[in-house]
């Protein structure tokens, strides 16, 4: 599976069960990148995409168990460590901001992951969003 996440400067993902931030341009980028492919997400994340009329989005609270090779999972509020072996690619959007956090990305990118692509773009409410793509 291909996992998509958003993190802040400290690898934070969530605070008090709420996403740290959101950005319309970033969501469009996810939709464009995944195109026709299935993107799994849970109910909490699905409301983010409600304005896109997405046909390739599937709500599944056990998405990390469900997704197969080549399928996408958009993750905001889950630990990835138990599923690291099943992840073939990681797409990380960085806010380039510091937010409060009580859930962090728990995969160490230094150890087993290699960055193969990086790009920057301006978001709707963020000066600079960095998109990094990692494979094993």
């Amino acid at each position: 599976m291909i996992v998509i996440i958003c993190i802040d400067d400290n690898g934070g993902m969530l605070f008090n069960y709420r996403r740290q931030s959101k950005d319309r341009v970033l969501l469009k980028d996810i939709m464009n990148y995944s195109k026709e492919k299935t993107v799994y997400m849970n109910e909490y994340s699905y409301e983010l995409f409600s304005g896109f009329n997405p046909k390739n989005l599937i709500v599944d609270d056990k998405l990390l168990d469900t997704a197969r090779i080549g399928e996408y999972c958009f993750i905001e509020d889950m630990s990835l460590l138990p599923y690291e072996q099943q992840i073939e690619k990681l797409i990380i959007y960085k806010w380039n901001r510091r937010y409060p956090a009580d859930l962090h990305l728990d995969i160490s990118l230094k150890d087993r992951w290699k960055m193969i692509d990086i790009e920057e773009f301006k978001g709707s409410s963020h000066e600079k969003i960095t998109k990094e793509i990692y494979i094993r």
Partner: protein
Amino acid sequence: MKKLMRSLFTIVILCCLVFEGCSFDKEQSDHSVEKTDGLIRIDNIPEYSGNAYIVIENNNPSFNKDDLTTISFETYSELDKFGRCGVAYANAGRDLMPTEKRGGIGQVKPSGWQTVKYDNVDGNYLYNRCHLIGYQLTAENANKKNLITGTRYLNIEGMLPFENMLADYVKETENHVLYRVTPIFEGDNLVASGVQMEGYSIEDKGAGICFNVYAYNIQPEIKIDYATGKSYPFDTMPRVNAAAKGLVEIRGNSNSMIYHGPKQSAYEEMADSKHLVIFHSEQEAIDAGYRKAKR
């Protein structure tokens, strides 16, 4: 210094209504706060233990129901007789946000202000003029009612993340966020011990933003005298002077009323405790009503 070392302090914050609206069912580590008849008592704020902020009241803020409005506002308390800031309160909306870059604020000298530099502080300056309500939210520049003497650590690690989260949320959604920052001064101290920050997004009933936290006005490795704002590198504190004079330093915990000698297990931990009381003999500690730690 004595005040600095005083035992746990109690903070009483007046409020009119306690929200329950943004609480979640999931368990969360937080620090309990007593509530009695509209008063919130924060007892025994834990000592700083490596986190720039802690969650209080299970992250539920306490705002007045009447303030749940989509009309932006901002209010700042008058300085008290010591020249200290009070509560800063805003309903942050897009219309309050700055349209130009921030100007200079160096002319403001908040209570307890000292210009002091350390090599081990990010940017070298120990103190920043900390906006209670961040400039990015309400465009308040050199408003002396909105600036406190805060450490670099408080500013960058404690407060800025919450301001960023609010500001980006408001920009993205055009919604409003109730945001209140309360500086907490112990006794007559000129420098705040920390700040309480509460936030709640109006239009989505807290689904986007909901928090209640306390951020510590500390700087790792620097000892601060909150009464005056004076500071010391941790390693050159009076205990070193005491050692040089051949005196024994006994470290008492004014919260537990237990004292620790140099070879006891919690002795080093006590060095940075806000409950630290220094004695120069065990007898002095005993005379003050303390008992010796068992380990």
